């Protein structure tokens, strides 16, 4: 009997609506479930009611950056092990990439995005 794997769900956080929609569209095309969030508040709120398999975070966001949001999430035992991928357009960033499951430098290609997501949400 053929069993169907449940869809993996990715929480995507970006304050740029067009990028949020573009990333979500790519993931949805491949069959992933996507939870779209435009800032840290929405992300933390959605994490209360959803259990994503991975999180994609933009770095430069209003009020609370992606790195700060990741730190907040890490402090909560429920999300301690949740794989987080960071997206950034900043050159020469001092982000410690080893602290994250993946790092995407904008602009990135669909293939690169899918490679990282497939690897961590497998």
């Amino acid at each position, binding site marked *: 009997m053929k069993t169907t794997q449940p869809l993996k769900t990715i929480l995507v956080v970006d304050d740029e609506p067009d990028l949020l929609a573009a990333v979500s569209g*790519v993931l949805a095309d491949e069959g992933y479930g996507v939870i779209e969030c435009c800032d840290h508040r929405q992300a933390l709120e959605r994490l209360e009611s959803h259990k994503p398999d991975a999180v994609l975070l933009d770095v430069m*966001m209003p009020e609370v950056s992606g790195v700060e949001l990741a730190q907040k999430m890490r402090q909560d035992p429920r999300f301690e092990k949740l794989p987080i991928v960071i997206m950034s*357009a900043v050159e020469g960033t001092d982000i410690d990439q080893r602290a994250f499951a993946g790092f995407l430098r*904008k602009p990135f290609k*669909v293939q690169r995005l899918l490679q990282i997501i497939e690897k961590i949400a497998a």
Partner: protein
Amino acid sequence: MSPNLQAIDLDGLLADMPTPLVVLDIATTAVVYANPAAQRYPFAYLQLANWCASDADGNAIVEEKLPYREALRGLTCHRRLVHFKHDDDTRALLFHCHSLRDGLVVLTFDDVTPLADSQRQLRDALQARDELVSLAAHELRSPLGVLQLVAERIARKAADMPPDELRKLADTALRQTNRLNILISNLLDVSRMRSGKLELEVEEGPLGEIVREACDALLPQANAAGTELQLHIKDPALGMWDRVRMQQVVVNLVSNALKYGAGTPITIALERPGADQAMLRVCDGGLGIGPEDRERVFEPYVRASRSHAAHSLGLGLFIVRGIARAHGGDVALDASPGKTVFTVNLPIRCPERCPLT
């Protein structure tokens, strides 16, 4: 020694000499002589507790390593640069030190503070340029990031996509190319304004119509932000205006209010307080701008708030000021918590072409 030289009043000559000169006695470590020029710089050859010294790289120099102390230990120097600092007074001195006979050393120095200041300014300008390149690269990458994904999605999935979805992707691509275009235009405008090469293409017409058109174009953006635009054109302000540039003034000020106004209604008012003066005011009820930032916000690459650090090069208000000044006017900011008002005062008449001054 020639008779002529003997006839010279050496004391008088040293006293009149513009170069600071100090003679030190190695045995007693005393200052034997300091000419009047040197007496203006006692910190250069006396131990003064309230002065700090550093080298060209900013590393502190202890008293024992200062040129006059080393000279007393028989060490000579040539063109050694030392920075001295006391409260707000900073001096850069270039030292020369030679041994004389009978255990004496002569120390001369030049005050090169203006040269050091201009070097520092040049270094700061280079650093600012590097930061700009990095910032601009970041800002250009964001729309490119969207375009990359949108184009790839179309290339991969166009055959399976409903027309509505394709249309949405095309709209996204157009929005992002427009954003890239604005970013590049702003960068070029700043460059033109800094080099005084911004020229206006003025024509006679009502400023009120220009303001209304700009506000109409901003409506979708305002609606998306859930912000109401209230337009009050109390006078059409017929005059000589560069239509495109004046629209840019309105767009930049209203976009700024949309970003920082926290969703409060934005008032755009055009008045004519005098026969030869137009006054455009853009008012929002956002966080306001602290007194320390009120002049800074008109500088390029400055944003008033960290919370809006993303998606902006901080050029909008610099460009507004440049355009207002090119029209012979200026822009002022009046802000208090809960209220921010930008007022653009413009003379009604304007010469045909007015380069930015």
